[in-house]
């Protein structure tokens, strides 16, 4: 088992499914635009487990969700649902702060990545925060659909 760290897209899908569930603290996830079958399997295991592993997202992911509310949330849930979630997150969910303790991990995130076609793409600071949030945990993977971050993770595994 391993912790999962969500970027904005995967966070929106997790919240969407939580709020559709009868009990948002015990949802059963299914695959969606930003959640693959494999991610869903890991998510459901964490929800059912004993609390040793968590699903996490940086406060920055929540701030981005709010900044692009109409584009990302598109009326799927109301702000008061999000407020309630933040006020009392499920025990398997952790909202990670943005403070100076993240900076050492932020420094470890490469500033650019070589894509499979040989082009060099920059890693923007916002994306680096999500990656650093994953790196700052003992064992975690970032759930993202961003091609640059996926490539970065791929290269880190090799």
């Amino acid at each position, binding site marked *: 088992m391993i912790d999962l760290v969500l970027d904005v897209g995967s966070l929106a899908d997790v919240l969407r499914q939580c709020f559709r569930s009868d009990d948002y603290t015990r949802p059963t996830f299914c695959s969606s635009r930003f959640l693959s079958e494999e991610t869903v399997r890991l998510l459901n295991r964490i929800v059912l487990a004993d609390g040793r592993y968590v699903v996490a997202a940086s406060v920055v992911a929540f701030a981005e969700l709010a900044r692009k509310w109409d584009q990302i949330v598109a009326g799927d849930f109301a702000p008061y649902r999000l407020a309630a979630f933040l006020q009392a997150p499920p025990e398997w969910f952790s*909202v990670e702060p*943005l403070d100076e303790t993240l900076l050492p991990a932020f420094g470890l995130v490469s*500033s650019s990545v070589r894509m499979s076609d040989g082009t060099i793409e920059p890693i923007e600071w916002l994306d680096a925060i999500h990656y650093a949030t994953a790196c700052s945990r003992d064992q975690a993977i970032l759930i993202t659909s961003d091609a640059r971050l996926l490539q970065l993770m791929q290269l880190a595994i090799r």
Partner: protein
Amino acid sequence: MRTRLLSIAEVEEILGCTEFQQPSEDLLLCTIVELVLLADLAKKGRSRLDWHDFLRGLEKVKSCLPIASLDVACLTESMFERSDDYSVAGLWSQLGGPELSPDVTLRRLILRPSATSWWEPELFGEVMAW
């Protein structure tokens, strides 16, 4: 004495100095956003500080330079517009939308005046003009 928010250039200057002391007339405050943006510039070789200078400088000043950060409590307090009975009426109108850059939204969330913020409410007015 009033609280004054530091710009990225000022934070870079302070972290690059051999010594730092708070001035007697103002209390200097830095947000985590400026530190992240400066860290990103340092990593990318676009600052006069390299990454190690940045970390050394940060270590040196962090006991005397307050850093305003964003945690779940601050986020929950700042992100929503609330009615008189404290129920959530919607997203906070000053958050800014996709037309603003993400650092602006983060700075606003961090500095929104609240019952727990210790800086003057005018500071938020200043950051709105940035």
